[in-house]
């Protein structure tokens, strides 16, 4: 049975990260060919798969759930605050929008020397680092009620969608509204992180509307993020003399 409250944030987070990973693999493939680039990507994905399975196994060993919830909640806050801040800054015009075409060109420039091993490592590292964020969210969301099928399944589905779309277009996936997705996912991850850390520290009673407080947190961060973007847009950039 799929839990959509888990599957949707996992799918959206994974989509954004897979698009970035695909852009790197695409750039590398033009340098060392599809076989080498896909080999590097598959190696990185296999590493991530092992990490996900190991995480699931460790979480079933009987550790105190409050502690696991606290640690994962802290990681979600670290991740969510960063994503949300970037999305707000981009929306407010304080930071330029992420540009897949520019990243593609940068990676191509890096590969200009034609070193096969260096190129392979760039693809491996790119997929591994982008996938790490996916792994973190899959592990964190899967923890809640043991929803591993919903979280890992959604991440794999996102990988398939991005890979098929990328292969059909054969270009960096520039049309994906990355900032909007990051903003939405940032609100969800922040809500989960806030809810879990406080619940782990203070018990379930601290939240006034029990599990429904989670929905309130999502709404609060969503509206708050939009308000912040509007507010920051009106203010001068720090360090800029008027």
């Amino acid at each position: 049975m799929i839990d959509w409250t888990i599957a949707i944030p996992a799918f959206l987070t994974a989509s954004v990260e897979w698009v970035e990973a695909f852009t790197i693999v695409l750039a590398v493939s033009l340098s060392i060919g599809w076989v080498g680039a896909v080999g590097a990507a598959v190696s990185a994905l296999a590493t991530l798969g092992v990490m996900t399975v190991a995480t699931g196994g460790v979480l079933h060993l009987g550790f105190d759930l409050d502690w696991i919830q606290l640690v994962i909640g802290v990681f979600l806050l670290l991740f969510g605050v960063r994503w949300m801040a970037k999305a707000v800054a981009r929306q407010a015009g304080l930071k330029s929008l992420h540009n897949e075409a520019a990243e593609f060109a940068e990676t191509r420039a890096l590969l200009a020397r034609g070193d096969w091993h260096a190129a392979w490592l760039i693809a491996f590292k790119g997929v591994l680092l982008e996938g790490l964020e996916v792994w973190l969210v899959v592990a964190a969301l899967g923890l809640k009620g043991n929803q591993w099928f919903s979280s890992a399944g959604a991440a794999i589905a996102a990988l398939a969608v991005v890979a098929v779309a990328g292969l059909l277009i054969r270009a960096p996936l520039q049309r994906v509204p990355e900032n909007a997705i990051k903003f939405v996912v940032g609100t969800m991850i922040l809500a989960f992180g806030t809810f879990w850390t406080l619940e782990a520290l203070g018990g379930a009673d601290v939240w006034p509307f029990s599990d429904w407080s989670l929905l309130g947190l999502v709404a609060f961060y969503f509206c708050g993020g939009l308000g912040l973007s509007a507010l920051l847009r009106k203010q001068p950039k720090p360090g800029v003399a008027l």
Partner: protein
Amino acid sequence: MRAFFKTLFGDAWNLSAVAAVMTAEIALTQTGNGTIAAWLIPLLVLASVAWLARY
């Protein structure tokens, strides 16, 4: 390795913001103010986002 840690933890500013949130959470829950924390912490998190977005 540096990129690995940066992916997991973010930069020093990011770590400081979350450390401040966690310190507040621990202080409030350990002093029996968990229900107040439920209202204050989201505000603090949003303030951290604003601070990181600006700098």
